[in-house]
């Protein structure tokens, strides 16, 4: 890794996100507790073994209350473990819940590369540009097998599962280039499925984003697909076919025939495009055809971005 593109390499793993320090604090505390336990136990084992060696003339009469002793150190261990659990669980819940105002970037993993699409349609492969200090939420999908989005410097890892959307979030806290790995074995060239995350000043990021993308934004591309695929015939305003309107549904609960309710998230919209007969909106007939084979993962991302943009417009006064 020579040259100007060198990834930040420090002796210790760099802490490049706001969560990194918190993860490390927990990690090194655990290492510290472990080292302490190892020292105490090896001290006891070696100490007893030498002091009570067979040739030693020492007093061996004992009346230690065994059960009481066991209960005491079991409760001691339980207390330590519960304390670590509460700490770790708190961090885990934080890691799993992205802030509401996070910048959204779409990622698609496929054998063996990462494709990223920014809000305005700017795309990149195996490189991800992100702004410093702003929370970033990466919406992950995969075109084939399970992959895992892993940026060690951010202490952020999330598996990407076919048929579902997953999110991972981080707030970059240090300018630089950091490794991106696939952390779930995914076949032949898994070890080469890696890239770089480039953390830039927000202004630089905006400039980079605006630079010669030549692409239309994701919702605009999605809108074109919405017409060309014929979705608009049934779901468009003023359609005579009995199909639910999609304006404003994103993120809202949808009642289904059969009485359940689902939240219209990425996964639900994707499933409705590919398997429309599965979760039919209450009051409608299951007449929509499946679009399996007609749309790929990238098209789905665009269509979902378009449907999301409908909600945003709706939400505005």
């Amino acid at each position, binding site marked *: 890794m020579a040259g100007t593109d060198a990834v930040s390499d420090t002796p210790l793993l760099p802490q490049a996100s706001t969560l990194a320090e918190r993860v490390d604090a927990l990690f090194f505390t655990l290492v510290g507790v472990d080292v302490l336990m*190892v020292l105490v136990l090896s001290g006891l084992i070696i100490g*007893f073994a030498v002091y009570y060696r*067979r040739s030693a003339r020492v007093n061996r009469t004992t009346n230690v209350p065994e059960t009481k002793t066991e209960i005491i*150190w079991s409760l001691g261990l339980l207390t330590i473990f519960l304390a670590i*659990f509460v700490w770790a669980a708190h961090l885990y819940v934080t890691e799993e819940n992205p802030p509401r105002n996070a910048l959204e970037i779409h990622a698609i993993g496929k054998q063996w590369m990462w494709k990223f699409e920014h809000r305005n349609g700017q795309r990149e492969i195996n490189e991800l540009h992100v702004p410093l200090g702003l929370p970033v939420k990466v919406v992950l999908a995969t075109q084939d097998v399970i992959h895992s989005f892993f940026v060690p410097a951010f202490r952020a890892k999330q598996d990407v*599962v076919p048929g579902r959307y997953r999110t991972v979030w981080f707030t970059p806290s240090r300018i630089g280039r950091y490794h991106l790995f696939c952390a779930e074995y995914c076949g032949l060239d898994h070890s080469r499925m890696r890239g770089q995350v480039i953390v830039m000043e927000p202004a630089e990021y905006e400039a980079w984003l605006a630079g010669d993308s030549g692409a239309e934004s994701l919702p605009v591309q999605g809108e074109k697909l919405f017409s060309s695929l014929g979705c608009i015939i049934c779901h468009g305003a003023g359609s005579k076919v009995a199909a639910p309107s999609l304006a404003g549904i994103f993120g809202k609960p949808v009642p289904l025939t059969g009485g359940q309710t689902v939240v219209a998230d990425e996964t639900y919209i994707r499933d409705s495009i590919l398997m429309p007969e599965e979760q039919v909106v209450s009051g409608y007939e299951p007449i929509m055809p499946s679009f399996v084979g007609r749309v790929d993962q990238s098209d789905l991302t665009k269509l979902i971005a378009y449907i999301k943009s409908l909600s945003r417009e709706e939400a505005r006064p």
Partner: protein
Amino acid sequence: MTSADISLPKHYLNHDYSLRSWLTTIDHKRIAWLYLVSITAFFFFGGAAATLIRLELATPAGDVVQTETYNRLFSLHGIAMVWFFLIPSIPATLGNFLIPMMIGARDVAFPRLNLLSWYLYVIGGLFTLAMAIAGGVDTGWTFYTPFSSLFANGQVVLAVVGVIIAGFSSILTGLNFIVTIHKMRAPGLYWTRLPLFVWANYATAIIMVLATPVLAITLLLIALERIFGIGIFDPKAGGDPVLFQHLFWFYSHPAVYIMILPGMGVVSEIITCFARKRIFGYDGMAFALLAIALIGFLVWGHHLFVAGESVYAGVIFSLLSFMVAVPSGIKVFNWAATLYKGSVSLSPISTTSWWAAW
């Protein structure tokens, strides 16, 4: 010399030297030897794959093997070591040999089933060898879907059939131990007097009998998915790839305890023997073995923290995983406490067991 040979008393090893007598034996000690030999063979087989992996990793470039072979090597290494070495290692050898003697029984409860168990192990092993000769698999030992079911182009069906067959060997051994320990203890050998090695194998046997069928079903589903495309794990057919991980780890996490509990039994026996002292807190030690086996069934989700289980599931599985560490901690403290006021031999064997405890 020659006349001394003739006068040797006959015992299980020298009453008949023929190969036939070994391959048709229903003597638990001889079966333990059969296992020891075949498990050692697989250990070297898996070890050879690991050696090639390490050689390849000596330099960044692919000079010993290329990517594809490398992936097949680590898969072979995992499959051979997990199912043909670690899982049967202690129960099938020391367990078969010692349990009947420790509880005062003539043999295990079902000697023929015991021999069948070894044959299943060997047949499963032959499938694994055939899989390796036919080109191997590149799925890793975990067979994660949909890679293993839809994308991998190796001998996945051969590989999973081999593991399923070896799994039945494990189930039969576990069944044999449970029945033997329940029904064939010598008069007066109450549960509260059972050697800890027997307790450890009893806890292990419960896991073998309850968890291994789930693995067999899961791997069978992979074979069916590959051959008939039934779609259990294929999201395009409405299946769920993460379901595979739940089922797989429902076996494979308890399998970790199949590997370690018998070892804990061995350490308990050696430390007490060489300290010339009863184990510290016998009841607690036996209880801890059962607790580990039981709670071990409820922690599989800690393999799925970032695989897409819900946050609630993640938190509960984390809590349960901390809980299972408590009985493990009790065991280690009790081993140390057993040395206290003991008469400790500093022989290599006992020092090795302290290292194991450590």
